[in-house]
């Protein structure tokens, strides 16, 4: 009958759920059931409007029930439309009908709306040099490009195939003038080795690491971090993450700022990694660091996203049915000397 299905006994999505139930219920307490039901239900997307496109489909987005969200007080970020009203949710396929303008540029990039926060939190100023250590497929890099403020942008991702995807994304959204060699460099090296390439040089570093990507792990059995064959890889994530963050810290110039981000709720991949990297930087490299508060950013967006209360290090967007974005963890640190 309909119910005598022959599902694999332990699909990765199921294993992920068991794992999260065990760890997150302890961590989030009463909040966990709310987060759990949101993670297991349809997520929302945001459309990052492309300022370089000459025919933005603003009207279409609004017709689909998206409410615009002002991203930057200074107006550098005119608009990003975010699906807000529960009635007005829009499905992938509807969004994908976007047409290129006469220059071949697409009008918006679809991403988890909370994913723009790390790019915003980085607070890039004019004449900054910026490194995005794990940049593919490029959503956050694109958000950075939209500000047009960085003097030089260096995008890296160790995966060659994902790096070519990143290049395709950039060419679909940004005009050629912004992608010239003097403004942009794209590399494909192991980010943990960055210190051997360039030290003490970037004003801003984004370290958006590979993680258990909680939403994906719960919903898709393909390419799932919780599949049996990837147990080792999953267990070694915090170490890899700490190494990447440390590499990012070393790549930053004194006075420069590093933003660490993940899309997991897992404390050992979030604050655990930050604590570890800060410690390693001090002990092994004599680098002193200071945590930079992201409270102002949280206050600005607290009506749009649900932030976890009382995190003692960094900020976290937690999924909620009424604002089904995230999870996104962010922590910002400044290099003192």
């Amino acid at each position: 009958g309909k119910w005598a299905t022959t599902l694999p006994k332990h699909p990765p999505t199921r294993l992920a759920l068991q794992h999260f139930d065990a760890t997150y219920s302890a961590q989030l307490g009463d909040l966990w059931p709310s987060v759990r039901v949101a993670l297991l239900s349809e997520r929302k997307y945001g459309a990052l409007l492309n300022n370089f496109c000459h025919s933005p489909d603003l009207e279409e987005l609004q017709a689909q029930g998206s409410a615009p969200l002002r991203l930057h007080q200074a107006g550098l970020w005119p608009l990003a439309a975010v699906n807000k009203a529960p009635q007005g949710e829009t499905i992938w396929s509807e969004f994908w009908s976007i047409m290129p303008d006469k220059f071949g540029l697409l009008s918006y990039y679809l991403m988890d709306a909370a994913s723009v926060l790390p790019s915003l939190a980085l607070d890039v100023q004019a004449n900054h040099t910026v490194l995005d250590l794990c940049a593919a497929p490029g959503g956050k890099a694109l958000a950075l490009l939209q500000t047009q403020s960085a003097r030089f942008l260096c995008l890296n991702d160790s995966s060659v195939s994902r790096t070519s995807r990143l290049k395709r994304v950039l060419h679909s959204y940004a005009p050629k003038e912004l992608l010239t060699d003097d403004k942009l460099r794209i590399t494909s090296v192991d980010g943990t080795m960055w210190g051997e390439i360039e030290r003490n040089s970037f004003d801003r570093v984004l370290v958006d690491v590979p993680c258990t990507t909680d939403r994906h792990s719960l919903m898709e059995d393909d390419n799932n971090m919780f599949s049996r064959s990837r147990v080792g890889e999953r267990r070694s994530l915090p170490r890899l993450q700490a190494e990447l963050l440390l590499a990012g810290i070393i790549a930053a110039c004194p006075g420069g700022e590093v933003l660490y981000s993940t899309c997991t709720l897992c404390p050992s991949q979030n604050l655990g990694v930050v604590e570890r990297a800060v410690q390693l930087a001090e002990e092994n490299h004599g680098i002193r660091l200071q945590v930079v508060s992201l409270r102002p950013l949280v206050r600005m967006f607290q009506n749009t996203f649900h932030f976890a209360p009382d995190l003692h290090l960094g900020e976290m967007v937690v999924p909620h049915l009424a604002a089904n974005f995230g999870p996104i963890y962010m922590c910002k640190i400044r290099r003192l000397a």
Partner: protein
Amino acid sequence: LLCSASDQTASVSSQSSLRLSPVLSLHSLSDMGFTESQAGQLFDSVSRLKGASAAKHVLSTLTVLFVLGLNPTSVQKLIDKCPELCMVKETQLQQRIQHLRKLGLVEGSLQRTVVHYPKILTVPVKSVKNVVQFLREKCQFTTQQVTEILRDSPAVVLEDLDQLEYKFQYVYFRMGIKQAEMVKCRLFRFTMEDVRCRHVFLERRGLYQTPDKKGQTTIINPKLDSILNVDQHTFIVDVAQASAEEYDVFQKLLAREWKEEELEHGSIEAD
């Protein structure tokens, strides 16, 4: 008690009904014990039926209902709820009532069931038999349980058997509920959408688990009764420990998930 020519409303309704049913007169109705206003309402109900000879069995139907032991007030209300009963032949009505008795609806519950859900007497014996057989054989309810289902949720006799099977299997396998509990909670009174929405909400919140082969769960599931037989607010706040906003969004999301699911299944079957 007869309506006079000056009583406009009664005369209009009686005239129109008289055309429908030559045998039915206010006089005969008052003989049966209906008050004037009840008689008028009866005419109105019967005249809602379409077709010239639609209500040709009205008198025999009323008689059968009186014989069943119902009083004029109940009978009038019942006909108002279900005027179609006046289209059913006396012999058929008798057979259907007999059949319900045979299924274990004793005096008292039989009458209550008929008053509460008169439509049950419009359903042919054969259809009722099919549903009963389905409940016994496919769902393995005992005879006694089937009687209780008919008594408490008589509308099952008109439900689509595929839908009924889906509901039963969902609650049995996904929720791990045994027949006795389903009967006790009057499961068949609830729509599939209600059952599924409340259950999936709890499940995704981590508050309900499908029991394993040994019937075990790592958490204590709330009782079916406390999930179904409470109003929405109590369900949201006490059982799901959620906010009304969350459940509101969830219902909408789930409705869409189902629509997509149906589309997918539809296309698979079409292949």
